[in-house]
């Protein structure tokens, strides 16, 4: 078995033998339901789609993804197992990928467990299931981006709390990057080109495009690149920490 899979399986095992997994899943599902039905006006809108469900995901992930990613490296550094892990014959990139895949797969499970809402909407009306599939994919990609950011920041510190807060702040900033308030604030002080760049960095913008059912390659590529670059940054952080 490749070391990537070995690490991923061990990570998943650790999720499920501790309460982390169950606490996360319960809170995720409950919050997803509450936000959709109450904050999202699922019934009163009178439309057979899952827009109100997906719109809440960025904010849900903002709270929950850092909780999944915070222990990734911080716990290993604190518990001394990092020394063990790094003396096994695998590269840092393999270890990083294994950990990330486990967390991403785990959040994917959470996402799949929201299937009752998909059944509900199909029972109540006849939604465009293609759009819903795209929405799920976009949501999962965004979860991956949050986790990749968390993986990198967890490598920075031994403290899970610090990792949690840092991840939340960075994710929050990236979510808001494309919002009018932020762009208005930056307008005038930064060149137009840069402003455009900032707007394109916004996670929210790319997610909303996919969630509307427009599966543009550029949006998907954005998330894939986002994940890849944060994971690479995380590997560099780990590498830097063992170099004098």
């Amino acid at each position: 078995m490749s070391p990537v899979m070995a690490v991923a399986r061990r990570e998943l095992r650790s999720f499920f033998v501790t309460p982390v997994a169950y606490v996360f899943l319960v809170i995720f599902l409950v919050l997803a339901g509450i936000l959709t039905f109450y904050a999202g006006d699922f019934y009163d809108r009178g439309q057979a789609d899952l827009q109100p469900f997906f719109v809440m995901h960025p904010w849900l992930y903002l709270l929950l993804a850092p909780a999944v990613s915070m222990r990734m490296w911080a716990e290993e550094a604190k518990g001394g197992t990092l020394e063990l892990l790094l003396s096994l014959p695998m590269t840092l990139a393999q270890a990083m990928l294994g950990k990330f895949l486990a967390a991403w797969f785990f959040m994917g499970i959470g996402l799949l467990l929201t299937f009752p809402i998909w059944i509900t909407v199909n029972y109540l009306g006849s939604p465009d299931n293609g759009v819903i599939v795209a929405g799920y994919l976009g949501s999962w990609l965004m979860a991956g981006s949050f986790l990749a950011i968390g993986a990198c920041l967890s490598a920075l510190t031994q403290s899970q709390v610090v990792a949690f807060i840092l991840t939340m702040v960075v994710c929050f900033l990236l979510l808001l990057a494309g919002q009018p308030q932020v762009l208005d604030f930056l307008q005038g002080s930064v060149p137009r080109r840069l402003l455009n760049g900032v707007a394109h960095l916004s996670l929210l913008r790319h997610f909303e495009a996919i969630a509307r059912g427009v599966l543009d390659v550029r949006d998907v590529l954005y998330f894939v690149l986002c994940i890849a670059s944060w994971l690479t940054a995380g590997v560099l952080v780990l590498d830097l920490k063992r170099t004098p």
Partner: protein
Amino acid sequence: MIETEQLTRRYGTLTAVDALSFRAEPGQVLGLLGPNGAGKSTVMRMIAGFLRPTAGTARVCGHDVRKESLKAKRALGYLPEGAPSYGELTVREFLTFIVRSRGLPADQGFRRFEEVVGHLQLEEVLDTCIETLSKGLRRRVGLAQAIVHNPPVLMLDEPTDGLDPNQKHAVRQLIDTMARERTILISTHLLEEVHALCNRVVIIANGRLLADATPAELEARSRYHGAVSFSAPGSGVSQEMLGRLPQVASIEVDPLDGRITVFPRPGERILEPVESLLRQQGLEVSEIQLERGRLDEVFRQITTGQSRPGPVREAGA
């Protein structure tokens, strides 16, 4: 085989390991000895590939840890200080993870798993969470993890630290049985361990190599090497008589139990002359002993630099 070449690690202005060069061959148990904070763990971490050297390098079975780190790691079994492991996993899950990430083929991995578990007597705790195990058992799990891929080189950082005497004995026996065909590097600050395990010793302090010798050679440096001590209760042994022997340098009497130690002049053997003198005098001697030398004294001498400053090398075994 483990080889270090001018291995150096600095943290800012602090030099934790300073141009350290030594070599351990197959069949050898090399003890890395030094006071706490001497740099023993840092040396091991660099060999294990966890830390990068600032300068110099190390080789495991000829594989440079900087250039061929994966090959070096494959040849190495490593027990980090305190035997860290994933406490929430069971012993079985933990060892399975190690087998998998070492990339052993399934059948071979399974066979080795069974062997190691039997060897370290872990059968009964296989499905127990590691964090609920006793210190001794956890150490055994750490050892199992280090040897599961049957590595030619084994590196153990303070393998018996914090264990009770029985557990220490068990771990030492285990190391002894593994020593024959392997290269083993252990770090310790326990001198009894050196006697029990090592056939060569490297002493470091403040990151620098101070001695590289066999335990016997180190003992020979002791003031006590070749001294004769005896107890003669209830009889007035004449110290003058002993002092008159041409081979004797000095005599000391332990103020507590009255034990008499006779020190030889350099290169002299004094057991026989002392014995015959005692016989001639018709003195009742309850017990007489030829001292091999005291490692703790030599260790103190070397690491605190009380005598013979600078690195001293003697022919390694």
